[in-house]
């Protein structure tokens, strides 16, 4: 459970959400604006703290961890892809990709790195600064960074929100491939049915609760379900 404020002004953003994210799967979290989907992801990723309840990553309980431990956890076991502004403008593409490992003081696994770079198709542009890359390329670098450190789980917060459909499809394709071929676990927040259709499983969130779940969705199914929610929302 996650609540903001207290007493009269108390707003409950997440209300007794109980969810398991399966390893090696691509999970999408959907819901209308204000449904709590971003908050859920932030809590799961250790960026935000919950008011009540527990969150486990594998065997580790992350609720109640101090900032230092949480930072280490994010650094070593979690990967992130944000909607925009994923890269440090002062570092080139390769440096951005290896940044989490650099921060940790670890040497990147050369073979794996090459494979990740090849997968996202950036081999030619590794020496470029973010400003010299297109939006799609920038997000691909962000995906590569998330993959390169071999985290247990990657969280994406509307990773294609700022991209046109072609670039978006490219990025989502890479995420899918990384789950299928590299066995990566991914959780992605989105309100785009097309994006959600790349996932193995879609969780629907409304008013801070999980209201539905769908496995192996198609874009049409997702869209229908969304319309359904909207209609229900309007009549209630």
């Amino acid at each position: 459970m996650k609540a903001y404020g207290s007493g009269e002004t108390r707003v409950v953003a997440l209300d007794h959400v109980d969810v398991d994210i399966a390893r090696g799967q691509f999970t999408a979290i959907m819901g209308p604006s204000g449904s709590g989907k971003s908050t859920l992801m932030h809590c799961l990723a250790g960026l935000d703290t919950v008011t009540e309840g527990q969150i486990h990553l594998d065997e580790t309980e992350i609720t109640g961890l101090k900032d230092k431990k949480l930072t280490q956890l994010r650094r070593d076991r979690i990967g992130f892809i944000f909607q925009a502004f994923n890269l440090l403008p002062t570092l080139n593409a390769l440096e951005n990709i290896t940044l989490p490992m650099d921060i940790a003081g670890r040497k990147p696994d050369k073979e794996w790195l090459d494979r990740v770079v090849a997968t996202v198709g950036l081999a030619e542009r590794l020496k470029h600064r973010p400003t010299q890359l297109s939006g799609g390329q920038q997000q691909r670098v962000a995906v590569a960074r998330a993959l390169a450190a071999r985290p247990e789980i990657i969280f994406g917060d509307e990773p294609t929100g700022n991209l046109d459909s072609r670039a978006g499809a490219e990025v989502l394709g890479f995420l899918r491939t990384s789950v299928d071929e590299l066995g990566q676990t991914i959780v992605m927040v989105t309100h785009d049915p097309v994006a959600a259709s790349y996932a193995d499983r879609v969780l629907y969130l409304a008013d801070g609760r999980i209201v539905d779940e769908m496995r192996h969705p198609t874009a049409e199914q997702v869209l229908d379900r969304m319309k359904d929610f909207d209609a229900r929302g309007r009549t209630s």
Partner: protein
Amino acid sequence: MTVLKTSMRNFFAHKGRMALSAVAVLLSVAFVCGTLVFTDTMNTTFDKLFAATSSDVTVSPKDASDSGETTSDTGRPPVLPASVVGKVRGAEGVKSAEGTMFSSSVTVVDADKDSLSPTSGAPTIVGSWNGNDARTMKITGGAAPKGADQIMVDADTADKHHLKLGDEISVISATGTHSARISGFAAFTVTNPGAAIFYLDTATAQKTLVGRTGVFTSINVTAAAGVTDPALKKNVLGALGTGYKVQTAKEVSDANQKELSGFLDVMKYAMLGFAGVAFLVGIFLIINTFSMLVAQRTREIGLMRAIGSSRRQVNRSVLVEALLLGVVGSVLGVAAGVGIAVGLMKVMGSVGMKLSTDDLTVAWTTPVAGIALGVIVTVLAAYLPARRAGKVSPMAALRDAGAPADARAGRVRAVLGILLTGAGAVSLYATSQAGGATEGSAWLGLGVVLTLIGFVVVGPLLASGVVRVLGTVLLRPLGSVGRMAERNALRNPRRTGATGAALMIGLALVACLSVVGSSMVASATDQLDKTVGTDFIIQSDSGQLITPEAVKAVKSVPGMERVTEYRVTEADYTTPDGKTLKDTDITAADPTYAEDVRTKTVAGDIADAYKPDSMSVNEKFAEDHGVRLGSKIKVDFKDGSAARLTVRAITSDDVVIDKGAMYTSTATLAKYVPADRMPLDVVLFGSSEEGQQDAAYKALKAELHDYPQYTVRDQTDYKQELKDQIGQLLNLIYGLLALAIIVAVLGVVNTLALSVVERTREIGLMRAIGLSRRQLRRMIRLESVVIALFGALLGLGLGMGWGASAQKLLALEGLKVLDIPWPTIIGVFVGSAFVGLFAALVPAFRAGRMNVLTAIATE
């Protein structure tokens, strides 16, 4: 109206970001106002003192100085006969006339032979207790002195040395040592800034100071009711004729004030100079602040332009913000300035100069000058950023602005900077090649200004290079955090350049002065080693002449091979070209002086100048007046008769010690000047017999224990003293430069703080992907250290260049040895790294406290 409203809102919305700029303005203005208030207060204090202590009209001997100064080379003040008093009394309009006797060529010691003289450089005065003194002083204990064994002490001195009634103290004058017991204490009714004053009765004062009664140093004349001072002066002049100096109270006071104002002006302008440096540094800070604020508001400004604000309006709104900043900073600065002045007065109090806050003088010009200066400088500094704001296109509103990491340092800048620096370097080189001092200083000044501007202009370009080098050496080994710090310092070279340049200015001055100072010590030491052949130098640090008694004491020390007496007096010279040079110094020394100081000559042997009726002249004098070896010069001694002396040596001007001195022997002087008019020794040179040095040194010290005004130094002491004096002077200057450095450090803090704000999102991202708080803070600290070291490197390099050029210039004046004080230079460099760490404390702390989620969400 809306322009003003937006400016006000922006100003108060960013008051945190404005705070450091305001502090910079405040500090600079405070220093200017503090200096003005302090010097004005000193002037007021002395004005009051001089006005209070001068009688309506003062009559003194013709050869006394205008300010009533009572020293002379004989150690006895010039006097007039007592009969003059009667003549003055007879003049019309005179209510009373009273002869007084006083002298400052004295030292007063307590029973333990410890000096009671002020250590602040203020005079020690022994005088007769007269009606005029009774008017300005109040007896606070005991009674006025009566009889040969009584003395009255001023209350401040008594307090300082815990003197009690009946304590025995002694006056040491040219006539000998005279003991008396304290009969009373008297306090000034105005502030006495620090002179120690002792009163005897008139007859005792006369005997003590000049050795005979019936003479006075001056006559205090009081006007009858309704007679003005100038009228009284006229009447007295009428009664006396022109044989005496007659001055009104105002004339005496003005003459005194004039004598002081030289010293006060030097102090005032020196301090204002340092305030100017602080202002210069503050300009960088203000430019940087406004540039960053404008950059951060690009989108907002674009929006304003898109909805119809004109370029001028945008431009003006930034300038109005600057105006507000200037006004706030300056007004606070004026207030702080008064505080600084009071603080300075307290500091002066602790070194023995008493100033009272009752005399605190804030002229109307002080706040006006302070505020005008602060506001004008702030607005001027904001002009460039304001123009840049005006140039923001309406399109900027639509673009995803973020922080423009443009900062392509223009080619124009590079060319201009290199040209300026090059021209400056040429000027500095010309300095070292200059033939004359005036020509050389012009080149030096030009070189300093040009290289400084050149470095400032080219700074952003140098920043890229220097930061890369520093990064490779210092940061790379620290891993990715170091690398990111380096990249951050590099991302806006203009900003890094300006921030570093601010620090550069202060440190360049520090480096330059430390090079000059240490070259001075090295040169003087070198010169001493080469020319001085004596073991001991005995002189007074407060400028007291050496009394015959003390000379006798020195000569009585066993184990001394020789003691050379050295005195200086004045004479009128008539040279072979028929010209007469009035009141020119002549140095009379014992022939052994030729061994004590090996004076270089261009013709003849210096030892011959000490033969009977012989002398030496300096090179320039010889050239100017066509004097050759064997020429005869008529020397009319001031207190004696005329002599015709043969020139037997011409001394080189390429010396440091005694430059320009013209020598004759003590014996020659004694032949033409009566014994009681012989000037006293200025300095004694003593040399011990072989192997007796340590014993002689101890014995000399013991023998001079009763004369605390004199110091015995062997060569080691002398060099150390020289080093200490220059060191103290440098420390004082460093202290004043600290102001500029503090402002520069504020600039570093400001740049970092604003950078952190600008990079909020980046910081959020880095924290999200696993950068720990400690790493984040370290990254900011390292960036700060790199900026500081960049400034230090530039400043120290520039300063050493200036210092070396100045040394080359001053080589003509005897600064022959260039000595670069590496420990100081390296110390400053390392210190700068710590300054960088310190500057990053708050910005790093604030960055660390940022909430990761809100940081990422920031636009």
